[in-house]
């Protein structure tokens, strides 16, 4: 029994502990989690046997550890997390960086005649979030922007995919499946866009608009999320889908 224990000292409240005793007391958490060496464990147990207060502290910490483990919050979104990560990895492999659920901005040359404050507001609308709830404002902004940004500075490999909350856009709801909007770079020929989307089970219904926006249809039972995922995996895209914003390399948040 240590000298301190013989004196009945309160291990947990007395900072003036002897070297041996204090060292042992400080190791109790790792005795509780089972990671001490057998020798250290033996010393802890011997001290606990000799000193009721030391033993009580061990019981105390065991209860605390159990309570902490039991209250660990359950996480059920691992599947969604993996989808995002996989999309990010694939985007990186194809030369596009991607940021999960974070605001991001594309850098582009100032080509609009809009007042800067109004242009800023329009741009902010693009980056305030990644949810489907933003898809409509994003789409509207880009459609409007099509009239303003006659010469958008875009990477030739950059696309923007959008969808409407109901899987279609106003007046376009059809029986062919969800509608997607894709903004292709101005330099990309229409037949190249058509070939690209056809290869991935999509079809061009309309476009390009003056802003370079195509309306696509996903065939059959494919959901809008599946269609977006297909497109994301196929090409480097800048997408507005729930929880995900993709930006071209070098165009991270400012």
């Amino acid at each position, binding site marked *: 029994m240590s000298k301190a224990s013989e004196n009945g000292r309160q291990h947990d409240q007395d900072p003036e502990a002897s070297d041996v005793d204090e060292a042992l007391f*400080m*190791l109790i958490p790792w005795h509780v*989690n*089972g*990671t001490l060496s057998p020798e250290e464990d033996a010393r802890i147990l011997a001290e606990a046997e000799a000193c009721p207060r030391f033993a009580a502290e061990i019981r105390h*910490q*065991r209860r605390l550890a159990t309570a902490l483990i039991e*209250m660990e919050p359950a996480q059920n979104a691992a599947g969604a997390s993996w989808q995002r*990560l996989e999309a990010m990895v694939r985007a990186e492999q194809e030369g596009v960086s991607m940021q999960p659920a974070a605001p991001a901005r594309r850098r582009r040359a100032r080509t609009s005649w809009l007042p800067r404050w109004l242009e800023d507001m329009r741009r902010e609308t693009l980056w305030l979030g990644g949810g489907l709830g933003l898809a409509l404002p994003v789409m509207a902004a880009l459609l409007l922007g099509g009239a303003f940004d006659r010469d958008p500075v875009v990477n030739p490999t950059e696309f923007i995919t959008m969808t409407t909350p109901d899987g279609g856009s106003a007046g376009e709801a059809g029986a062919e499946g969800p509608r997607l909007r894709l903004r292709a770079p101005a330099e990309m020929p229409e037949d190249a866009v058509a070939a690209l989307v056809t290869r991935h089970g999509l079809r061009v219904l309309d476009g390009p608009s003056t802003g370079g926006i195509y309306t696509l249809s996903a065939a059959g039972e494919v959901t809008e999320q599946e269609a977006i995922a297909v497109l994301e995996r196929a090409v480097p895209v800048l997408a507005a889908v729930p929880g995900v914003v993709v930006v071209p390399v070098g165009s991270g948040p400012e």
Partner: protein
Amino acid sequence: MNRTLDIMSLGSRSGEAPEAEIDLIRSIAEGDLAAFERLHQRYYTRLMGFALRMTQRHDAAEEIASDTLMAVWRGAGNFRGESKASTWIFGIAYRQAMKLLSRRKPLDMAAEIDEELPSATTGEEEVEMLFQRHTLSNALAQLPLEQRATVQLTYVYGYRLSEIAAITGCPEGTVKSRMFHARNRLRALLGGAS
């Protein structure tokens, strides 16, 4: 106590020996996406739990977990195996959490963890348990970040003292000191309930 939530103790459901994490990291370094998915399966829940207790916010926790795993994907080739893979990964998560928390305004980090609340049909014992958890959760949230992380890494994730020192980038003496002060603070906050 067993290392209840320790990642290394997780085996495959088929009863096969768990894939060595060093091999997993090597495969990831070679660009093996399937290996990365297996690593994600092993770590995501734990990284989320750790980050959630650190930040008190789901969005911030998700950001930390995702950033950590992406850092593993990008940096697997730099892992030399001098520590356990889990120590390396949690070290990344710890730094990500500290970085995120240092740049966010306190208002942005207002706690939002949804603790389960008792309903009219909840039994008496369960109500008591839920209130105890709520009290403990609040007390934990009042600890300084470094102490909170030390408590979590020790009691919940079962790391060795030396591993926590490696994860948090400080001497073992500092880890012991943080744990000592955390215990005293929890005792003060919880009274007899601790």
